[in-house]
């Protein structure tokens, strides 16, 4: 188990290194130097020289790459070329917002998704099962940014029940909760369908297992068999799905945050992309990738701990 954990951590670190090296390499493959590309038509020689120096482009490529990794390892992701603020500060300011949005979205999606999945199993083969299946597929395939814009149109522009932009006033919890409702629906809606289908599929598989037959043979009511015995096992695979799905939560957060002008990782990186703000983009990509790798590695370890079959397979 310990060797497995070390192996996984080493692999994650290696992947992170390869990714960042590739990203960094790409900057140098592009025709024209990053400083004049970032400045665009505004580039005057003086401005260009200043930016070149600030981005560290006057150093040899190897030195630049070495510096980037050496600094990143110490938690220094460089300085925003435009605002001169440290990139890490901006990320640490934005990240909790995105984390909050993702957590809230996922929590209600989990509750609703598992409920729908269990309902579909209880009523399997009936009209209700098929209707829930159709709803789940529709939820999965509808793009989150379209959902976000439609919600904005209905609840913020037409009905004016909820705010259209921002994350609420600082310190004013009710306004923050109000500002969170629409974005979290837009981020979570796909997950409801996805989780419902997953729970349904894995539960149907489990329902054929011996211990379920035993539970039924004891005369336990079907409802109890489903919720107490089948659901428990069906939850385990959702852990890895949620962990891997963190990437897609980040993706939808980028869109949804932009639609609702919510501060967060999404608005931070899209704003930086527009301005060709390399340090912010690279820093955000490095940070989110590292976080993502951390989560999937932890999820794999957690599953190995929870599921004796996986644990035994690793011990062998």
């Amino acid at each position, binding site marked *: 188990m310990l060797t497995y954990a070390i192996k996984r951590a080493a692999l994650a670190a290696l992947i992170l290194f390869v990714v960042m090296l590739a990203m960094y390499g790409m900057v140098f493959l592009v025709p024209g130097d990053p400083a004049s590309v970032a400045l665009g038509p505004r580039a005057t020689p003086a401005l260009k020289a200043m930016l070149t120096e600030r981005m560290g482009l006057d150093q040899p490529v190897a030195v630049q790459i070495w510096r980037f990794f050496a600094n990143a390892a110490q938690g220094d992701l460089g300085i925003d070329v435009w605002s001169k603020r440290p990139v890490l500060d901006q990320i640490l300011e934005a990240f909790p917002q995105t984390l909050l949005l993702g957590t809230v979205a996922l929590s209600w999606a989990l509750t609703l998704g598992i409920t729908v999945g269990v309902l579909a199993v209880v009523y399997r083969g009936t009209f209700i099962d098929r209707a829930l299946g159709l709803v789940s597929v529709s939820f999965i395939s509808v793009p989150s940014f379209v959902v976000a814009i439609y919600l904005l149109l209905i609840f913020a522009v037409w009905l004016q029940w909820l705010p259209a932009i921002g994350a609420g006033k600082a310190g004013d919890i009710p306004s923050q909760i109000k500002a969170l409702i629409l974005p979290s629906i837009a981020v979570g809606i796909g997950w409801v369908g996805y989780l419902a289908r997953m729970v349904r599929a894995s539960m149907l598989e489990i329902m054929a297992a011996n211990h379920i037959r035993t539970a039924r043979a004891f005369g336990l009511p079907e409802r109890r068999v489903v919720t107490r015995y089948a659901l428990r096992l069906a939850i385990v695979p959702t852990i890895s799905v949620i962990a891997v799905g963190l990437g897609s939560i980040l993706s939808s957060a980028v869109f949804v945050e932009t639609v609702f002008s919510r501060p967060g990782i999404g608005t931070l990186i899209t704003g930086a992309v527009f301005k060709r*703000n390399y340090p912010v983009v690279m820093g955000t990509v490095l940070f989110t990738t590292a976080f*993502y790798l951390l989560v999937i590695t932890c999820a794999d370890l957690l599953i190995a701990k929870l599921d004796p079959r996986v644990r035994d397979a690793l011990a062998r």
Partner: protein
Amino acid sequence: MRWPANTRALRALIRDPMGLMGLVLVTLFILMAVAAPILAPYDPLALDVRAKLQSPSLAHWLGTDQLGRDTLSRIIYGARTALTIALTAIGLAGSIGILLGLIAGYGPRWLDAALVLIFDALNSLPMMMFALAIITVLGPGTGTLILVVVLVSIPGYARLIRAQTLTLRSADFIVAEQAIGASTPRILLMHLLPNVFGPLCIVLSMDIPVVIMLEAGLSYLNLGVKPPTPSWGNILYDGYTAIRTSSTLVIAAGAPLVLATLGFTFLGEGLRDALDPRFTTARP
């Protein structure tokens, strides 16, 4: 021999209401894309500043945008943009994926290990962050958009082909080919490829709506197809900026996006059920 099986699958698809709906929606979408110049009542780029942000009328069925361009025409041409980008990107990614997958599955062990590491690295990136990083470096545009899709999708396709190749490389018919001295390219392209192509095709077609969504999403962020080229994402953005004065544009731009992705998903689900032998035999 293939025909009866295919017509049976098609009939099963049409009998399934979800599959039928998917088939109808996808056919409409493709028709819109192919026949755009015939179907569109106006030039999608023609400006008419006097008729800006109009509500639906007989002259403009879905109204007009900020520059007085006909929304219906722009949406019809948007289907063309979406389909062109999706087919180009998926075709490219599929071809490269096949090549890399065959190399990884059939080539030397070290090359396999190296390629798998690269696939894993690409796969373990949060997709959107990776896309935005590439766009920052190369600048937004249709070319960048296609490159992003290709880079993001290759690992999945290559892994699939690799896994299939690995299981087939020691099959009798491949060993027999090696024994009679067939060249490696011949074995790969003539004997392995036809056997690994089927499963890939299903995955490729299921990715079309994902690419349509990504194209629209990035274009909505102004990081995809450059305006004034009509793209559903661009139209959606125009609608979003005018959301307080006119809601027609944003509703009209979102609807085809939802319908197209739903259509492809329903069709994919329906096809899977229709083609899955376990499913068809289980049914009475």
